[in-house]
């Protein structure tokens, strides 16, 4: 599904190199986790995959089902099935959450040559999915993420994911700022979406999220590289011993 080969990325405006050769291969239906210390480049990887400006790809490649992601506009990556749940969801004053969701869903359908959802059908689906994430009618009416608590923002990301039904979901620290109940809610939302054709890349700092969303593969990222890859046990090892040993080992 997602193939990242020897990806090198620097900041466009500065000579700061952030990713120094990332290799990652995620098959259909797999759940991968990336853990790593702050500043190791996890968010940068997710942004570069989603197509945020400000980064220059200086080497390597990233493809989704064989299609070159780096050659696509962000909206086309989304229509191709890529979704990023932001570490810091963006507030958009003046744009209602519902309008935002409908615009996004229909824009993607249009790009893929599918008919738009009728207002009635859309409403029905949104209400149902919102309910399972405990997102009330008021949150759907309010401007996107404006005045939302940290947990509400993260749940809103998952709602967008549920509505857009992407095939490759990247979750960037979706657990940060969540209390235990919210974490459960979000995890259930993610788990409900797990299927044979859908893959996940879960970026997290802590092992606790991985208790809820069970990964198939765990990667450790440090200083812009994947320094170790293993099974779910690798996450536990990090939890117990921290990154120090792994970093030393990698050097």
């Amino acid at each position, binding site marked *: 599904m997602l193939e990242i080969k020897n990806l090198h990325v620097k900041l466009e405006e500065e000579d700061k190199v952030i990713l120094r050769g990332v290799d990652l291969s995620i098959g259909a239906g797999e759940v991968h986790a990336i853990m790593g210390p702050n500043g190791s480049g996890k968010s940068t990887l997710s942004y570069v995959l989603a197509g945020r400006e400000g980064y220059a790809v200086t080497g390597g490649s990233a493809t989704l089902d064989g299609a070159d992601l780096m050659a696509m506009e962000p*909206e086309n990556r989304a229509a191709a099935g890529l979704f990023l749940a932001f570490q810091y969801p963006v507030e958009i004053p*003046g*744009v209602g959450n519902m309008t935002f969701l409908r615009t*996004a869903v229909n824009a993607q359908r249009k790009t893929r040559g599918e008919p738009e959802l009728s207002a009635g059908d859309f409403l029905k689906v949104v209400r149902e999915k919102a309910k399972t994430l405990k997102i009330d009618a008021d949150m759907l009416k309010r401007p996107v993420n404006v005045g939302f608590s940290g947990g509400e923002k993260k749940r809103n990301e998952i709602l967008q994911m549920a509505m857009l039904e992407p095939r490759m979901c990247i979750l960037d620290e979706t657990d940060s700022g969540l209390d235990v109940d919210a974490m459960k809610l979000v995890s259930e939302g993610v788990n409900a979406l797990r299927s044979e054709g859908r893959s996940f890349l879960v970026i997290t700092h802590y092992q606790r999220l991985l208790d809820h969303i069970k990964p198939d593969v765990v990667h450790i990222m440090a200083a812009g590289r994947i320094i170790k890859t293993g099974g779910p046990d690798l996450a536990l090892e990090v939890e117990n011993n921290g990154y120090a040993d792994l970093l030393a080992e990698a050097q």
Partner: protein
Amino acid sequence: MAQPQAKIDALAERVAGLAVCGSGWLGAARRDAASRLAAMGLPTKRDEYWRYTDPGSLTRPDALHAAQFDTTDEAPAFDGIDRLRLVFVDGVFDPAQSDDPTLAGVEITALTAAETTDIHWARDLYGALEARGQTPVQRPLASLNTAYATEGLLIRATGRAAKPVDLIYLRKSETSDAMLHHCIKVEAGAELTVLENGPGAARLTKVMEVDVAEGGRFHHVRVQGRDPERRAATHLFARVGANALFKSFTLTANGRMTRNDAVIELAGHDGVAHIAGAAMGDGDFHHDDTVFMTHAAERCESRQVFKKVLKSGAVGVFQGKILVKPGAQKTDGYQISQSLLLDGASQFLAKPELEIYADDVKCSHGSTSGAIDEVALFYLQSRGVPRRVAQSLLVLAFLAEAIAEIDDETIAEDIRSRLEGWLARHEG
């Protein structure tokens, strides 16, 4: 105060071919205005409220050439709305193209017919609010209009108007220099909506005097012509009575030079006056909103909401004042002026002013100028929304507070579709 010779000469040149017409009450009102004008002279860039806008093209003797502009790619404004249409062509009322001006709850008389009829209410209004609005800030172009305009309408609402009255300003000439002067009286408890649309002339100088009596309600929505080369100096003078409501919204998309003055006095207790505008400019575009809101009575509410979207060197100006007179306790005044600069070449100049002589008041004002939020744009794109659509969505969100000042949802939707049309035509 002695005027500089330049001002005197400029005025003499400007009015050289014009005559103060008429006898009777209207002639008298025009002569009064002519003497007010003589005492002021025409504005120049040195005048305090013309510092950001060069009045030259508005005060010069003749209208500058404005190329014809084809607007058939878009339905005319308010097309789908059931309304009484009154058409002016290059500033001259055209009964043949207009609807029969009979409407339940409303009396409509052409200014050209006013002299011979003693319309008592218009007598008390024509030039009166304009004269009152000359202090503390002079507006010579309004006096010029009162003195020399021969065309316009006198509209009086005595009840709830059955439908909106739409003043349609067509333009056939590339050099027309038109003056229109309208007087509108909304009697106690009556309600009227006035729409205006179209360029009117190559250069349009306009005055609208609106008197809303106790408990009356007046709604005004205007779409200024989108001919890129047209010029306009418009003035809205309003007096809002006790428990009365006044709401005005203007959409300006394009136009080489537009100066919209609004002088509003909340004269009776518990009155409400809202004035809003959305201006869209690309390239050679200069748009100036100059507002003077006076709170002269207790417990009144006023709002000024002006938004401008500017690109490729377009210039936006906002000069807005809230004056709270002694005794106008419990005033609630709000003012916001914001511009969205779509590139680095555009410019927004703002001069918000508050002057308060009462102690128990709530007044706030804010002015901002900024670029489109790139992070929000990326967020929308990452959800599959094409950049162009995302940009449009963000621009409309920026304008939303101004559009929200239009009470009628059908009219608001018409305005929104015009804004979307403009954005689609001015992409990139």
